[in-house]
């Protein structure tokens, strides 16, 4: 018996989308025209950089294709790195597992089941060297995702490795994320305060920045992670305001240490999310460029235009990807990548379509890289600077977002700055309201998500290859860490750690980076270095 065909939208009725609001609630007008915007724009590379931080943008140099990668052992991650470079990655982005970020070794009890799952398991100098084996550090830049104090240990290991290869510190190119507030997803208060005293972490991060500025002039000392904030459900305005406020807070603290802004501001960057509302996102980035430029110039007195650049790396949103019909995510990621390019960002990680299932496999990584290459070479998006500039809609939205972002930044400033707001729990409160609101919107389909709350097909389990790791990987890493620490000839490490302990106990207000690096050079492990400081401050970590 033939089934009646389903006609969801009668021709007479027609099909319409449920509403015309952007993700942050801005109402899209029916049509935009000169009444909405009739202004002037600066040139590309001209203050306040609305159209981009460079005069020629992608015509002069394409963005970096910088996929975050890493899993299991350093050796396996090294293989993946080489594969990614072979298929067209142009920048390295090292993501360690959680243990690495919070400063514990694989044999830490609470870490044992998480070792190597969300990133590379790494804790020793030898791990770093294995991870980067055969990689020419002076020909390709590396981003290392670590908050302080782990950032200091990893930077130390990286510098040791460069030295062993004869690469001078002045030639080191890359970024250490180095932000204590936003690396650990959320940033829920618990995640950021449970493994190290937050004030000391912040201070160590600043110490590292101060250490690197004169010694590694090409190295980026900080990436403010606005993506993690955004992925908890806040909107574009909140994402921008929180991250710009946090960035300003860091700049303020560095200035208060007596540093000259024109020596360090250009070494600070941002890491943002890109979501699916194309025009709002483009407007967001343009607004952020303007606001940051103004902050640097007017509030902090920067004179060099490079100090005013809002340099931004992005990763396309994971929050918007679905477990249902995962292939749809390819489309989403492609649109988001295009949006990033239209926004003028400096590097991109395109999220893989299996995000809701597992870590990316080589296959899905490759597709992500191809996505970026297709946009770069096959579309016209890279042939002219700020192609959407001058669009009545985009300019109006840029103005509107800029206004809202400033307002929120004033609120944060009035409360004592982002760091204060974070410590008070205010940021957490905002994030919580946002996540519940977003969950409601996803439930009710007010935020339409095809395949999940709209046009949902109750299909059988998706045909998707789940990336699985070697079954003995964790056991091996745990044993490695144990053996390393029990090994012979650790006297110099013990001495250096004791020194670090003493310094932290009695001179924590002075530089701690140098004693930390000494311990790293003496082959202390990540946890050993961090524990010395934990013990010195009487800080205990969850068992």
């Amino acid at each position: 018996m033939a089934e009646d065909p389903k006609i969801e939208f009668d021709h007479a009725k027609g099909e319409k989308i449920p509403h015309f609001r952007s993700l942050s609630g801005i109402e899209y007008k029916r049509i935009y025209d000169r009444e909405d915007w009739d202004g002037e724009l600066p040139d590309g590379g001209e203050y306040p950089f609305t159209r981009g931080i460079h005069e020629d943008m992608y015509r002069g140099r394409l963005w970096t294709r910088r996929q975050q990668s890493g899993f299991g052992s350093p050796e396996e991650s090294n293989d993946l790195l080489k594969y990614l470079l072979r298929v067209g990655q142009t920048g390295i982005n090292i993501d360690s597992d959680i243990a690495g970020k919070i400063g514990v070794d694989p044999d830490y009890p609470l870490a044992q089941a998480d070792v190597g799952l969300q990133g590379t398991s790494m804790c020793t100098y030898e791990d770093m060297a294995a991870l980067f084996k055969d990689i020419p550090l002076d020909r390709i830049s590396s981003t290392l995702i670590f908050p302080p104090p782990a950032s200091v240990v990893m930077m130390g290991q990286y510098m040791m490795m460069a030295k062993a290869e004869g690469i001078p510190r002045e030639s080191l190119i890359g970024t250490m994320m180095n932000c204590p507030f936003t690396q650990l997803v959320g940033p829920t208060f618990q995640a950021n305060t449970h493994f190290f005293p937050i004030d000391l972490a912040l201070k160590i991060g600043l110490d590292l920045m101060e250490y690197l500025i004169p010694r590694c002039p090409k190295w980026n000392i900080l990436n403010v992670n606005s993506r993690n904030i955004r992925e908890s459900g806040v909107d574009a305005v909140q994402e921008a305001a929180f991250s710009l406020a946090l960035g300003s807070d860091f700049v303020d603290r560095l200035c208060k240490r007596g540093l000259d802004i024109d020596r360090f501001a250009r070494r600070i960057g941002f890491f943002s999310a890109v979501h699916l509302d194309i025009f709002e996102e483009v407007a967001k980035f343009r607004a952020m460029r303007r606001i940051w430029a103004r902050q640097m110039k007017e509030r902090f007195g920067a004179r060099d235009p490079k100090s005013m650049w809002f340099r931004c790396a992005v990763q396309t949103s994971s929050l918007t990807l679905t477990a249902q019909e995962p292939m749809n995510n390819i489309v989403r990621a492609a649109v988001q990548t295009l949006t990033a390019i239209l926004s003028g960002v400096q590097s991109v990680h395109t999220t893989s379509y299996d995000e809701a299932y597992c870590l990316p496999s080589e296959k899905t990584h490759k597709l992500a890289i191809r996505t970026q290459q297709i946009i770069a070479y096959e579309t016209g998006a890279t042939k002219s600077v700020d192609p959407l500039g001058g669009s009545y809609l985009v300019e109006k939205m840029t103005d509107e977002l800029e206004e809202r972002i400033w307002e929120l930044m004033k609120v944060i400033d009035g409360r004592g700055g982002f760091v204060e707001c974070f410590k008070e729990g205010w940021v957490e409160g905002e994030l919580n309201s946002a996540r519940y609101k977003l969950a409601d919107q996803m439930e009710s389909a007010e935020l339409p998500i095809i395949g999940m709350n709209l046009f949902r097909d109750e299909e059988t389990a998706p045909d998707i290859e789940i990336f699985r790791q070697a079954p003995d990987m964790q056991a091996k890493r745990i044993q490695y860490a144990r053996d390393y620490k029990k090994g012979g000839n650790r006297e110099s490490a013990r001495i250096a750690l004791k020194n670090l302990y003493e310094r932290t106990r009695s001179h924590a207000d002075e530089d701690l980076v140098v004693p930390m690096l000494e311990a790293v050079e003496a082959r202390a492990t990540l946890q050993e270095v961090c524990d010395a400081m934990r013990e010195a401050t009487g800080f205990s970590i969850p068992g």
Partner: protein
Amino acid sequence: MTADLDLDTLFESLRSGNRRTGGLVMSLVEDCHPQKEDILKRLYECMDRAFAVGVTGWPGVGKSTLIKCLAQAFLDKGKKVGIIAVDPTSPFSGGSLLGDRVRLREIEGRENLYIRSMASRGHPGGLANSARALVKIMETMGYDVVLMETVGAGQDQTNVALIVDTTIVVVAPGLGDRLQAIKSGILEVGDILVVNKGDRLGADGTAADLLNAVMMGERKGWHPPVIKTVALESKGIEELMAEIARHAAHSAAEGSAKARKHRAAENEIVEAIKTRLFERFFNGEDPIGKSMSEYAARLCERKSDPLILADAILREKDIS
């Protein structure tokens, strides 16, 4: 639970400090287990032995951190400590999200510590009633000190204040006008006033403000001290412990503890009568049922008033 519990075995297990039994019995008295009365009778047979401290205040002032410090201090003195963390129940859903344990995480897992979460509603006989029962259970299990954390400043908190030996009210600087609004409530129940986050701007001002109010108020015998703490750094805790001890000694000497317990007892009897009346007349059923939305609508449109509606409902149920 259908089988009758052997109360002798149950209480023997409780007295040995068995956590599992403790958790179970606490649930039995919170819900309406058929043997609840017998259990309560046995519990109240023993004289009050544990020292109960209530800690109350608005959300965000740092109560949990403060309780953590106090618990640590008592544990370090070798005491067995119980914590009852009360979180508000949603008036709409009847459900509750109890998140205090997360804030007590640093001390969780210690041997002589028991942490129990409690919702503020859904207790026949009132919150204070159930809380008292929980304190008694902890006492029977051998706990010397029970710290009870409640939120806000309302009737519930006033009732809880009556069942503990010492009530600490915690504020934080920056409350502004809210402080004015809740001052009378604070002074009514607070035996010790704490200004937490004492290293922040405005802390001294807030402390001075409270001190002033204490001076001007009438409180026979005991003048609530105002203490500044920075719970996150465990500052001010020694002073607070000393004041708690001082208050305990004072109440014992003066007999105000007795008067308070008397008032609490009167309260409990009234609440119990209310519970019984409700049970007897409505047999445990929802007294209003389907007509509720109609009545509520009438009330919303101001076409009637609650007492008139109550009379109508009672008439319908043949109660006059």
